[in-house]
């Protein structure tokens, strides 16, 4: 299924066409429970031929830079605009993955995005699910795209 390749291609396309920030993809992490030290995340559920959860996780300054670039405005705190932007990016990423899988005859349906923000939170998925985390580097810092999935 080449999850990592689909995720990085979709992310690169969205950043190039919608957000206009240069980014570099780093080596995927496959370990379960990294504490990514992030302050804003957005997640969306996917269902259909397999079950999954797609998320983006950003330290505050990276989330603000991404949201600001997408909205074309300066953001200096994590507010509703930042949350909406990150939620919308997750929605677009999930839509892109859905298309990439549909091209191979694997059908997926999307739920709706939720944003998570705060000074200290952790996110976990059922033990036993697969997880792939891809770090991306922007000038301002690193963010992560995270896909947890179960192929049952």
């Amino acid at each position, binding site marked *: 299924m080449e999850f990592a390749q689909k995720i990085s291609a979709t992310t690169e396309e969205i950043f190039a066409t919608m957000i206009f920030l240069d980014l570099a993809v780093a080596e995927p992490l496959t370990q379960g429970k990294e504490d990514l030290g992030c302050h804003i995340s*957005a*997640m*969306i*559920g*996917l*269902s*259909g031929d397999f*079950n*999954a*959860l797609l998320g983006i996780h950003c330290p505050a300054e990276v989330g603000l830079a991404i949201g600001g670039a997408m909205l074309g405005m300066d953001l200096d705190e994590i507010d*509703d605009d930042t*949350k*909406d932007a990150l*939620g*919308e990016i997750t*929605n677009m990423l999930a839509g892109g993955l859905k298309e990439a899988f549909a091209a191979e005859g694997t059908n*997926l*349906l*999307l*739920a*709706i*995005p*939720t*944003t*998570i*923000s*705060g*000074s*200290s*939170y*952790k*996110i*976990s*998925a*059922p*033990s036993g*699910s697969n997880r792939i985390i891809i770090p991306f580097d922007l000038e301002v810092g690193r963010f992560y795209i995270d896909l*947890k*999935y*179960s192929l049952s």
Partner: protein
Amino acid sequence: MNHAEQIAEATREIFSSMIMLEVTAKEATKRTDPAFSNSISGMVGLAGTVRGNLSIHLPATVATAVTTAFLGMEVESIDDDVCDAIGELANMLAGAVKTAIDPSGSDIKLSMPSTVYGDTYSLDCLDCGISVQVPFDLDGTEFSVELQLAEN
């Protein structure tokens, strides 16, 4: 049945049959404060012709008590067992609410559950037209179950 009644019935039924705890529904509200402190939230996406999220939010002390009753083992703080139990509980609640909303079983599919926990975190829903939260009393403590649906 409206959504609040569907949530109340599903929650009572699952707590009584799976966890052997009696819970009482209080008056439904719409959550206006996105912030949670020292809590855990289990969430499942609903995808398909109806899109949304079903969540359960519990203060940490209530979550450990519920997990202890659910798994039949003593837990004292939020650990992997609690995350798995609360994620599974969200999954069962989402399954029951899905059956109430979509008796044919063909319109909605559930995504993978996830849990978010921490000292302070906020959860915001993007694109939520409908949002119903039902608080429950459990032996003098409180938790809530929330259904968010996109308007389309």
